[in-house]
């Protein structure tokens, strides 16, 4: 059981970096890159579990990969549309429009 705890604690900073980037970045593409970092942390943890006991962890990892890849595809579509409408992908620029 201690192996599981170590695996989670080692990968937790990577997940934290991803979540921080998701919340703190202004550039939409950087946000999507942060999502990928957090996703990689999740999949890495699942890979360790898979090495510890059985192969189900890898299957779960592939499912997560599919779902988040779909979300990222939608995110890129939103980024393209932002570029068309606002001529920028800075999410603060979107917020500023409301105040005017």
């Amino acid at each position, binding site marked *: *059981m201690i192996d*599981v*705890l170590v*695996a*989670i604690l080692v990968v937790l900073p990577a*997940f934290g970096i*991803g*979540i921080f980037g*998701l*919340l703190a970045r202004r550039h*939409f593409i950087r*946000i999507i890159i942060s*999502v990928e970092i*957090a*996703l990689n*942390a*999740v999949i890495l*943890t*699942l890979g*360790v*579990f898979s090495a510890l*006991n059985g192969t*189900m*962890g890898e299957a*779960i990892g592939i*499912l*997560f990969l599919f*779902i*988040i890849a*779909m*979300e*990222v595809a*939608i*995110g890129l579509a*939103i980024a393209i*549309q*932002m570029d068309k*409408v*606002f001529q920028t992908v800075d*999410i603060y620029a*979107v*917020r500023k*429009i*409301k105040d005017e």
Partner: protein
Amino acid sequence: MVNLVNLENTIFYLFAPFILFIFSLIVAIVGLFKKYLVAKILSYISLLLALITSIYFLSYSSALFLFNGKIIIDKFSLIVWIALIIGAFFSLSSMENDLISREALPLLLLSLSLALIAIISRDLLILFLAVEGSILPTYALVAQFKKEPFSLEATVKYFIFGILATLLFAYGITVIFGNLGSTSFAIISDKIPNSNLLLSVLGFILIILSLGIKSTLVPLHTWAIDTYQGAPTSITVFLSTTSKILGISVIALLITGPFSGLYKFTTIYYILVAFALLTLVVPNIAALIQRDLKRLLAYSSIAHAGYMSLIFVFPFQTIYILGYYLITYSIAKSVSFMVVKIISGEGSYSSYDSLRGLFKSNPLIAFAFSISLLSLAGIPPFAGFMAKFLLFLSTALSSSVGISLALIALIMSGVSVYYYVIVIRFASSKSLGNGNEKLLNLSFEKYLFLILSIVLLIVLTFFPNYFFVSIPIISP
């Protein structure tokens, strides 16, 4: 012993999600040929079939176990299904051709069909796939008017919080899986007392945070106001009912099912109570200073997430009210947003002044609007009163924390009457212009749904016991 069912029976029992999924494909194809009326009628037929089968399965006395107990259809899930389908009905009836021509209907049916599967799933992986699959089409639904800056702004906020929720959910499942070696609810609830407590609590909190974002519990609600305002109003009907009901009922499923073993630890208990307390107080106070109808109703729907989260206090005693509360909330909230749609279109802004003279020019709309708002406020004799009364009463009877929370909920419910009554006063006041208010044209379906909602909100008051749910069954 599990009653084994063969494939045909499985499809029969899962008829409601299947029919919505198949019709979403058919409606998408019909939409290609620009037959918008046909597409709408087909969507109505699929929703009606799903509603009828849900009501028919209610007559079954025992729960149905499918796929080795990974999917269980019990009374809890059927009542929540009915609440979800009602919200989709109202959302569909307020849509016009401008939205239907942009493929809103297939996305709506697809999202609803996966939401139905999420309620009956008894495995964290199926739950994850269904919940995320149900949220994915709503990003596209919010961005239907993608050339409008406000709609796009709403989409950006919704997307960032939505993907945050997805990541937290995924990591929560990872931690739970690593700790317990399984994602099945039955095994989790067996293993959790003898597991590594730190990891179980971490996983549980991550999953609750993720579902809290979807059901707009207060520190996590910030996306909801702008998204509800910026989205097309017909879509706001769908978001404020379906997504929220999905989030709250999945949390109820988790805290009474697999994670009920964690409930005796006070840290978890007080985290959930703090969510409930904040969600009761903050939106009700913030709604007092709003001057836009859509924002006000968005805050009111967050406040109702607070009333629903009273079940966190002592879920085993109070969960049976949840189904009735969800159904009354679903009807009242969707009618109020639908009237905003009729008055000021799909746009983002709808001032209180646009309501002036409504009682004189369009009495039916004004009556339906007033009754839905009074029901949301909890004024007798409307159904919202009975739902709030039973919920507060059972919360107060549960425990000492429950008494104080029920009291706060009662005070906040009193505060909410103020801002609802201001809106009704605007509707009954004289118009600013020369007295020639425009007569809003109502299509047949909207006429029907407004009358139906008035009747239901009065009649349902007297029959709460038909919609009481049982504690969700998690293992055969």
